[in-house]
């Protein structure tokens, strides 16, 4: 049935999809799949955002690309502190609050962190790789998911400096009430699906 939809209907469905995201988001905290803060409390980062843009940053401690991004993530989050709530999300179910706390300390993070052992946030954000980010606008619509920038070309090769800045662009668009020009660009790093 899906393969036969017209362009027109597809467009309609895409509008519908945003509803779904909202629906899932609102049901999220009540569902069976939950994300937890480091005290073990169930947290819905979208509900906790109080009207701010929400940025979920997906990280793996054992992914060197994730770790190398720490200074950039710290810098972008500080830059948009007024408009956006940043959450660091750890999708590895073997992580504990203690190992994450230690990691945050080592990399000088002062951002809230979440464990996402059941990949509820991974599914919500549609991310596949660490490090990738998901940007939700003030209406909790997912407006961008994917890489932070184009620093990494592939595993083993990185540019001297990134020349595109997808995360920053998406936050700026959301802050201005717009959608970013690019909705999704996959990142370079470690597959989240390997954790399932």
């Amino acid at each position, binding site marked *: 049935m899906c393969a036969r939809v017209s362009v027109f209907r597809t467009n309609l469905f895409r509008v519908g999809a945003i509803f779904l995201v909202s629906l899932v988001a609102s049901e999220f905290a009540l569902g069976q799949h939950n994300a937890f803060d480091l005290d073990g409390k169930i947290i819905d980062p979208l509900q906790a955002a109080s009207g701010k843009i929400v940025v979920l940053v997906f990280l793996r401690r054992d992914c060197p690309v994730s770790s190398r991004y720490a200074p950039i993530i710290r810098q972008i989050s500080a830059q948009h502190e007024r408009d956006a709530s940043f959450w660091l999300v750890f999708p590895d179910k073997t992580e504990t609050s203690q190992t994450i706390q230690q990691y945050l300390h080592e990399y000088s993070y002062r951002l809230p962190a979440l464990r996402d052992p059941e990949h509820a946030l991974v599914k919500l954000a549609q991310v596949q790789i660490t490090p990738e980010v998901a940007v939700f606008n003030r209406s909790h619509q997912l407006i961008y998911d994917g*890489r932070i920038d184009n620093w990494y070309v592939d595993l083993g090769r990185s540019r001297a400096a990134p020349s595109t800045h997808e995360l920053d662009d998406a936050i700026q668009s959301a802050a201005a009430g717009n959608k970013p020009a690019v909705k999704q660009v996959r990142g370079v790093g470690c597959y989240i699906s390997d954790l399932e």
Partner: protein
Amino acid sequence: MNSWPRMLACVLVLFASAGAVGSLLAKGSARSASNSAPDTGSQVTFNRDIAPIIFHSCSTCHHPGEAGPFSLLTYSDVKKHARQIAEVTQARTMPPWLPEPQELKFADDLRLPNSQIDLIERWVAQGAVEGDAADLPPQPKFSQGWRLGTPDLILKADKPFILPADGTDSYWNFIFRVPIEQTRWVKAIEIHPGDKRYVHHANILVDRGATSRKREAEPGSGFGGMEIRIESQVFDPDSHLLFWKPGTVPYVEPDGMALRLDKGTDLILNTHMQPSGKPEVIQPTIGIYFTSQPATKLPMLLQLENDIKLDIPAGQSDFLVTDKFTLPVDVNLLAIYPHAHYLGKDIQASATLPDGSTKELIHIPRWNLNWQAVYRYAEPVFLPKGTAVELRYVYDNSDDNPLNPNHPPVRVRAGNRSSDEMCHLWLQVLPINYDPAQGDPRMLLQEALARHNVEKNPADFEAHYNLAAMLQARNKMDDARREYEFALRLRPEDAAANNAMGSVLLAAGQPGEAVSYLSRALQTRPDYFDAHYNLGNALASQNDFAGASEQFQLALQVQPNDADAEANLGSALAEMGRFSQAKTHFERALQINPNHALAKENLQELQRATNK
């Protein structure tokens, strides 16, 4: 309401497929394991099929304390990176091995066969099944600490380098002052470069004149820089490639090929590091293994290069640089080390033998500075006299080269910074089939190389200087003088060239002319021992013994334990009739070197003169 979830589910499928397309586009040509063709073969399991590959080719680096950022020792370790492993092996990013397969084999070849890569891909596509525990081979055992056993001498860098959390790659040089009182022979050096997860490669350079110390802000601090030059005052060519990269197995030199270490020699560890996201403390240690067997075989590092041709226009994606050098003696080629920076794209070296046949020495079609390495041949490669060794390097200075340090691209020329370029190829060769009566065959190689470089670039100061030094060593003084003159036209104030010219003139019996060159050398470098010493001799030849004794004293301020300078100072003082002072210096020379013939002879002469 019941119809909504179905419709939305349908839309989600569309979304997902759009994402998948985006994913493929974003990654270029890299194939994703999960997108592979449906499996038609038998079940692949970790325990039976994959573990042997991982244990052999991955675990060496991927275990605690090594360079791999995570361990790959168990099913659970590998499962957590399964798709990533499939992707990096497909792309041949891992295991890191740049050369294409060729007829001449390299030792420690890390390249995975296609069959193993396909097997990993099938395993992931089938769901990364663990399999029967009985099939699992024993986990490899890795020794901690020194791989070659406890070293005879362990040296730790005086001060650590703090690798910044972010920014571009860092290049730092650690100086190890080797505390030995006499010449020793080294059969191996094991390099522990600090935290191996952040050090990409490290290279030891032998500094026999302790010249690099001048670059330290304070003793032991080390100094920055991607490329360093070690100045050598005498013919003592570099002979060994002392290299570390992740996974390097410490190399023990073959019998008779020990590396000489003299008193006062420094070892410089040139280190390339990549930021980790947090500050890292990098403090390397090296372990030295001595042997009582002095070197009987004298290898040499031949450097082919053509930096003068490196002038790459902005935007050019296929800029070719070549160099071709013809060997003046038979050699065995033992190892090869190509080097370019971030614009390097396709790196090739070949040899054309006198019979017209060719051998591919190395071909790296996708150069990556981060994984540069020394490649040792599994067997020595015989290259007879008359063989032409050629390098062909292609550079990409376009915006399509993602590693281009300049965005937008700019004109790039040769230089030592990482944003400059290089076109270098080192060959470790062992001269063979030579007649020892004809002298050191390395001198023939060095002279031929210097002539080659002079022809390539008549404005190459070092080529003229090195050619002159070789001619001087072979007592061809007129030719040497002509080359030093060329060198001095290029760098009139250069201390080494002025000193060398002075020494040639002195040997030719022209002390008056020598004095002006030696004085100019000292204007440039007041603490230049050789120039003080030579000037002392030149002045003494002109019967200016007061001037001579002053120069020998200045020389001794620079190097207090030089027996020759003490003996000559004694001679100058004796000539001035200051016998008591002369005696002191002859005796001092004999304290330093009890067999110093001149000091012995003059001391006896002095005793005869004072007894009269």
